[in-house]
């Protein structure tokens, strides 16, 4: 792809999410879609983190843990310490990144299925911790989190207070989409940088990479920390959107879903997680009308997709280009 085509693609994408989608929603009057799309955008940020750990060759099923951690950090900071929502986003991300450095140091030595299982256990540990620790208020969770306040710079209001808005859902949609665009732009930049190429070498052969002087311990810690940062930010934003957080907000199922989003979109493509999240989330919601058969149809379609397109949805385009 040439540079102009890339830029054109980016422009179309930005136009679609910032202008066309709100226009379409306004035209059809399906206001509920705002919430759905906000969820998709936020979940795809967390999935992007999982994708990055796949990129260094680790199957990460611990993203639910970091999303939950981020949600609680943000909720506690807002409700107990009265911090502004806008500061809690980076704070939650950084908290998760630090936590992941501590946790990652021992467990990133594990590979393959071992890492997958430990990270799965991590999700469960976080849920149990949230139930046991006093500051998280146990099973009843933290509710009534205030809406984000205004941002003003030099006296000019950049973002109005969410609670004064007529429909904060729309504001949340723009917030989530902006976060998503930033996250994926950063990911794209990272993957196409020098570090990205070295990460690719980790995926293929860690020993070989380390033998030619790549500091693999350092690198995989960084990747894991970035991944957890994204998970934390996504969780914090989610807590603000739903104005509540419970120990069951992010569970093992969510961790598995983050992983599935990556698989479905395609592990070889940076934008795979975004497409995967959109497809899975929308597919699930569309099937709601089928009632009790929802899960049956959903899982059957997933199995079929896996048989036909085991390398992800985006591999479809690649095959056509080759043939």
């Amino acid at each position, binding site marked *: 792809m040439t540079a102009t085509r890339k830029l054109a693609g980016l422009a179309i994408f930005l136009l679609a999410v910032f202008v066309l989608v709100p226009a379409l929603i306004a035209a059809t009057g399906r206001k509920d879609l705002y919430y759905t799309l906000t969820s998709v955008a936020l979940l795809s940020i967390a999935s992007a983190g999982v994708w990055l750990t*796949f990129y260094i060759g680790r*199957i990460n099923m611990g993203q639910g843990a970091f999303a939950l951690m981020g949600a609680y950090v943000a909720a506690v900071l807002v409700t107990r310490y009265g911090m502004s929502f806008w500061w809690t986003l980076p704070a939650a991300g950084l908290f998760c990144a630090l936590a992941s450095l501590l*946790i990652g140091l*021992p*467990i990133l*030595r*594990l*590979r*393959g*299925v*071992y890492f*997958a*299982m*430990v990270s*799965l*256990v*991590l999700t*469960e*540990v976080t849920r*149990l*911790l949230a*139930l*046991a620790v006093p500051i998280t208020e146990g099973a009843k969770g933290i509710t009534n989190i205030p809406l984000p306040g205004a941002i003003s710079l030099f006296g000019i209001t950049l973002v109005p207070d969410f609670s004064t808005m007529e429909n904060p859902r729309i504001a949340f949609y723009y917030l989530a989409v902006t976060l998503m665009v930033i996250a994926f732009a950063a990911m794209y930049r990272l993957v196409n940088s020098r570090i990205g190429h070295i990460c690719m070498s980790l995926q293929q052969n860690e020993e070989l990479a380390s033998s030619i002087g790549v500091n693999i311990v350092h690198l995989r810690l960084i990747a894991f920390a970035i991944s957890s940062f994204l998970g934390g930010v996504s969780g914090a934003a989610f807590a603000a959107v739903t104005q509540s957080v419970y120990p069951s907000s992010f569970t*093992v*199922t969510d961790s*598995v879903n983050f*992983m*599935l989003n990556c*698989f*479905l979109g395609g*592990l*070889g493509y940076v934008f795979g997680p975004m497409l995967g999240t959109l497809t899975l989330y929308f597919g699930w919601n569309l099937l709601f009308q089928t009632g*009790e*058969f*929802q*899960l*049956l149809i*959903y*899982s*059957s379609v*997933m*199995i079929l997709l*896996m*048989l036909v397109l*085991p*390398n992800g949805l985006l591999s479809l385009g690649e095959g056509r280009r080759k043939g």
Partner: protein
Amino acid sequence: MEQVIANGLYLGAQYALIALGLTLIFGLMNVLNFAHGQMYVLGGFITYAIYGQLGLPFPVAVLASGVSLAVIGGLMERYLFRTVIRRSHREESTMLLAAATAFFFDAVILLIFGEKQRGVPKIVKGVFHDFGIILPYDRIVVAVVAALMIFAFILFMKYSRTGRAMRALAQDRVAAQLMGIKVDRYTMIGFALGAMLAGVVGGLLVSITGVNSGIGGPISVKAFLMIMIGGAGVVGGAIAGGFILGMMESVGLTVLREYGDVTYLVIFAALMIFLAIRPNGLMGKPWG
């Protein structure tokens, strides 16, 4: 104290049997079978239907659970896993397939058997009460049957032709193929055997704890824990892991009772520390 040990042994025997099936599938194909817990639930429901509703003898029902799960497992390997492994660039793709089949089983079980907790009449009445231990007879029967099956499984893996072939496959796939082992056939048998074990345990335990459609996931997570403790893909490791987890659960529930529901939190934390020191578990092969 005797009571705690007896409970631990009883739990350990059933856990070890669950872990054996999972580790067998993992060792042969490098597939982490997410649907293992669901297979267990399915086995439980089949026994419930045949023993509880049709009124046929309990052993027949458990046998039927085992056979139907073996057939399902064999078909899954033949038509799903083999295809995906052949077509995919990365072997992790099988995890998505396994997770999807887990959802699929959940849906099927929910549609056929509903969401109610189901139980069956006791197989043996009465309670054993001696040496300071109180244990219902049916639990003893189940534990003994489970222990016998573990023993039979070890003998089978060690001395039968099929067992030897499967062990060779787990050690080195290519070398086994070069020695003339029919890789495809034995992989399928292995998967069927693993699924059968899950079904049989489900069938056995329905007589004690009952079964409901929601416990598949938690059972899978427990099975993962066991094979992580023991080391994935190793028969001895699965058995050790099962008994260790059973014992920890039993001791934890007694010792930590006053601190509330923290047994599993402690077990998880201990496991993280343990794996940081010994990444391959007690006796796992390096890096899975």
